[in-house]
């Protein structure tokens, strides 16, 4: 019985992180309707950036903001240089484009960093918190809390500021938003830029949580896709629910069936959702 509670704690901590990991993907898909297959690579770029900054003995308090800033810039570049050129064609072209970009990025990472597994281990985060019989590793706890804060900030931005409201307006009804004087092109740029920054931020956390190689990107994009399909697009409840389902299925199938089955189980759930409820549990729009 105890083991179930321990697994639940693990799943909850993981779900918090997955919510942040998928938030950028969900934002981009929800707002501009783009399924960014290079998303996982951006997460890894973030991970390698933080890792490199750490090797250069930069403080993490500086490394993370710098990574986020670079993410914002690369999002703008991605939108202007690549996505805008194909945005008026069928969405399928963007799938191919972003897949090509994903290959390019992961192979570039492989070129610079080689395929060895890297990880960012900090002395101060190596222990665990013991609550009666349960173990809560410090790094997972910290990442959970920071993810929570980041999602809260994103939520406040989307609900509270003018730009945030404009983003939601465009996602809800593009033509209506245009009639109110919102320029969707600018909103797309902002949402892609935010999405990339979120990806790279969560990449930094990814480095704190586990080892990574340049070719993990497909698995990461799949996780984000899972969260968006199961939870649905358009609101934070969907994001949290989808992440919880993903974390629960991974933790429990990993424990009871073995690590190799984690992906199989989550893909089965994904396919069932795509067939049964493609708008997700809490989704408000069918993009």
């Amino acid at each position, binding site marked *: 019985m105890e083991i179930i509670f321990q697994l639940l704690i693990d799943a909850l901590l993981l779900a918090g992180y997955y919510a942040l990991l998928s938030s950028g993907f969900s934002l981009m898909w929800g707002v501009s309707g783009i*399924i960014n297959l290079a998303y996982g690579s951006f997460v890894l770029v973030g991970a390698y950036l933080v890792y490199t900054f750490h090797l250069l003995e930069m403080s993490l308090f500086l490394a993370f903001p710098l990574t986020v800033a670079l993410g914002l810039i690369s999002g703008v570049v991605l939108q202007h240089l*690549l996505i805008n*050129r*194909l945005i008026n*064609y*069928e*969405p*399928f*072209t963007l*799938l*191919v*484009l972003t*897949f*090509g*970009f*994903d*290959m*390019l*990025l*992961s*192979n*570039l990472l*492989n*070129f610079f960093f080689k395929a060895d597994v890297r990880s960012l281990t900090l002395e101060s985060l190596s222990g665990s918190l013991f609550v009666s019989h349960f173990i809560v590793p410090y790094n997972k706890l910290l990442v959970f809390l920071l993810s929570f804060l980041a999602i809260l900030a994103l939520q406040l931005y989307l609900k509270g500021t003018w730009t945030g409201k404009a983003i939601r307006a465009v996602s809800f009804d593009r033509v209506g938003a245009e009639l109110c004087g919102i320029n969707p092109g600018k909103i797309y740029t902002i949402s892609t830029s935010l999405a990339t920054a979120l990806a790279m931020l969560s990449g930094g956390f990814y480095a704190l949580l586990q080892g990574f190689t340049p070719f993990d990107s*497909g698995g990461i994009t*799949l996780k984000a*896709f899972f969260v968006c399909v199961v939870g649905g697009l358009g609101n934070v409840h969907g994001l949290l629910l989808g992440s919880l389902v993903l974390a629960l299925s991974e933790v429990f199938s990993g424990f009871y069936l*073995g690590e*190799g*089955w984690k*992906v*199989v189980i989550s*893909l*089965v759930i*994904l*396919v069932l959702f*795509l*067939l049964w409820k*493609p708008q997700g549990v809490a989704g408000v729009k069918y993009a």
Partner: protein
Amino acid sequence: MLKLLSFIFVVGCLFPLFANPYWLRIASSALLLSSLSYAHNLLFYFLGYPAFGGIAFFGLGAYTFSFLYSKGFPLIPSLLLSMLIPSLSALILLPIMLRLKSHYFAISTLALQVMLMELVENIEFFGGTKGYALNLSHHANIIAYYLFLLALLGLFLFVILLERSVFGRTLKAIKEDETASLTLGINPMPYKLSMLLLMGMSLGFLGGAFSIWSAYIDASTVFNPTLSVKTFFVLILSLNSPIYGPFLWSLFFEMFFETLWSNFPQMHGILLGLGIMLLILAFPRGLKWKRS
């Protein structure tokens, strides 16, 4: 068209007599890629369904063949069963997915493909992560070459016939507007199912031929998403010419990248990614299918 067909037939048949193993390999991979493209086009060009994960049936074919052959089955029956089983699985697995459109359909079939890959890797009975090493004759690569050629010519001829027949036009009517074709008394389901069957069959055959060609298969090779991307990349580039396009683009693609890879082995992933991006940016036009 028939001139080109007979040209490919004659040149294709004579090619192995003159070519060295290196060029035979490139020609085989070009034939494989173009046959894969024609097979996917049965569903994509004629019905508007991008089965991005169609390679799932290629993988099933490869596994069926390798499993049977390694258990001592003769070559030809194994090859026939490697056509039968994927086509039946396509008929069982895909119809329910046909309710999804456009990239939802694309991604759910891709999910199916990755799921099968992970499943096969986790089941020891199907070779697990070790895969299958087949014990074939020295001429396996030539046999595989002719099998690929056979598949290409068959599919090519079929596509030409489809373009000219009432059946093909009915398919296009369903693609353009399913409701309108319903009002004209066309029941789309039998058409869709027959195309699924044909796609599964040809992909399964190619999977079997691929096993003969490479003599070793494992899940990450035959269910590889890169194969799906290469195929759809060729298909998108050749959307305005469903008959010649896949063949010519595949030939170009394999020759170009093979030359590039053999000269820059360290960089091939980077160059492939870059090439895919540049080509799709240069030729994004011609995408037409049923919109959701």
